[in-house]
């Protein structure tokens, strides 16, 4: 499969790989996908008291497009409020990375990861 230059760039130099303390109150963790489907994303967001995403880290089991999609969203969400981050749509990821139709599910998963991490944070702090 021929990957776009942007996918290759993210794959070769992934941004913000790593983990944060999942038990920390200011960290929201999203774990989406399934090993049997061939992709699992873990996205963690560190959120300030006034609801701004200060830091983001990811780890992904999946193809190049899945890794690039998760790397990209960690860049995008930083500095955004929770409301702004939730407005990121999978189609924005598809367009930015020029994902082919067979890889659209990677972008859907990335969007789900953001929502899941935010919901985890909200649950912890409600």
């Amino acid at each position, binding site marked *: 499969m021929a990957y776009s230059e942007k996918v290759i760039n993210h794959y070769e130099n992934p941004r913000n790989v790593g983990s944060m303390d999942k038990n920390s109150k200011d960290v929201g963790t999203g774990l989406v996908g399934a090993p*049997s489907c*061939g992709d699992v994303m*873990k996205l963690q967001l560190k959120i300030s008291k006034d609801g701004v995403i200060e830091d983001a880290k990811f780890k*992904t089991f999946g*193809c190049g497009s899945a890794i690039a999609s998760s790397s990209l969203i960690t860049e995008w969400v930083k500095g955004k409020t929770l409301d702004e981050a939730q407005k990121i749509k999978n189609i924005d990821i598809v367009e930015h990375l020029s994902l082919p139709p067979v890889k659209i599910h990677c972008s859907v998963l990335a969007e789900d990861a953001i929502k899941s991490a935010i919901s985890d944070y909200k649950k912890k702090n409600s």
Partner: protein
Amino acid sequence: MDDIKIKLKFPIYMDYQATTPMDPRVLDAMLPYFTEKFGNPHSRSHSMGWESGEAIEIARKQVAGLIGANSKEIIFTSGATESNNLAIKGAAQFYKDQKNHIITVKTEHKCILDACRHLEQLGFEVTYLPVNEDGLLDLNLLKLAIKNETLMVSVMAVNNEIGVIQPIKEIGSICKERGVLFHTDAAQAFGKIPLDVEEMNIDMLSISGHKAYGPKGIGALYVRRKPRVRLEPLINGGGQERGFRSGTLPTPLVVGLGEAAKIAAESMKEDYQIIKKLSDKFCTRILDSIPDVYLNGSRDMRWPGCINISFAYIEGESMILAIKELAVSSGSACTSASLEPSYVLRALGVEEELAHTSIRFGFGRFTTEEEIDYTISVLEGAVQKLRDMSPLWEMAQEGIDLKSIKWSDH
């Protein structure tokens, strides 16, 4: 490592099951038949036809010699897919009024399985036997599956995805005893391991040119003459190839297949020893040194030039991208539009999550020790990088049982 790198040519070819590079000696043998020796091998009225015809018969002998057959028993085809189709459909159609049951195995090549599916639609009965965890056929299951209506058993010699060698001789003797035709798809075995149609009681055997350092577009089917095996042809016409396969033979390709067989006869032993040594080194360094890495299929009953490995917690396509200097193939079919993991690995009982992490490494006559050393070091680095990035590896290291998690399947 940099010293090694200078000597290497990239990408390093590790996909010998997909196709093999043509041996330069094969090309040399073929060239005259493209230009000055262009006569139609079936022309009987002039010397140019005779010249081509003689070249064909020499090639036929060379191919037959490699499998212990008589040259009259070799039918040239366009490749192993056609040979397999001719064997399965041809025999089924010819004998349909006597017997209508076919036995094959779940891990066969798609062209066998698809030909069988086609016959099922026409009313034939097909049994698809399972394999053991090591990819090998249980002979007792085969014995139990044979019944009065069974016409034929088709079992491949060397598997194209995992490299295991089926017990061909034992299967042949069971078939002979029960009066059932035995066909074997030897596309991956011809020229690599010793095959003898008499000793192994094989009635039909499929051959591919380009998997054995010969040209693409040529193959052969061995069809036993004593006792005679009859087939309904797939292609009708001028009655060439004893009426089994009409159409003018492509002389240069046939000569190429013959030359490939001749070279294999001379160098099979040496090729095997070198490939085995390289394969053992690769397996020792990768399988025995990296944690949570698994060989798919029997370690002993195998062609050492095909090593299929699951790298747990690393998705196969990302691995292929990480080792893009190596031309390898993903054991899982997820590089294609389908996201389904390999049916062969599933037949071995490899779980889906592990099947997604599988890569096939193919070695052959032109693989060098420098290439193996480089591959090992690239793989070690890629495993480290991708596991550092894998949430599954992280969870496994924390002692979390991945099966205990409720995953959001999509």
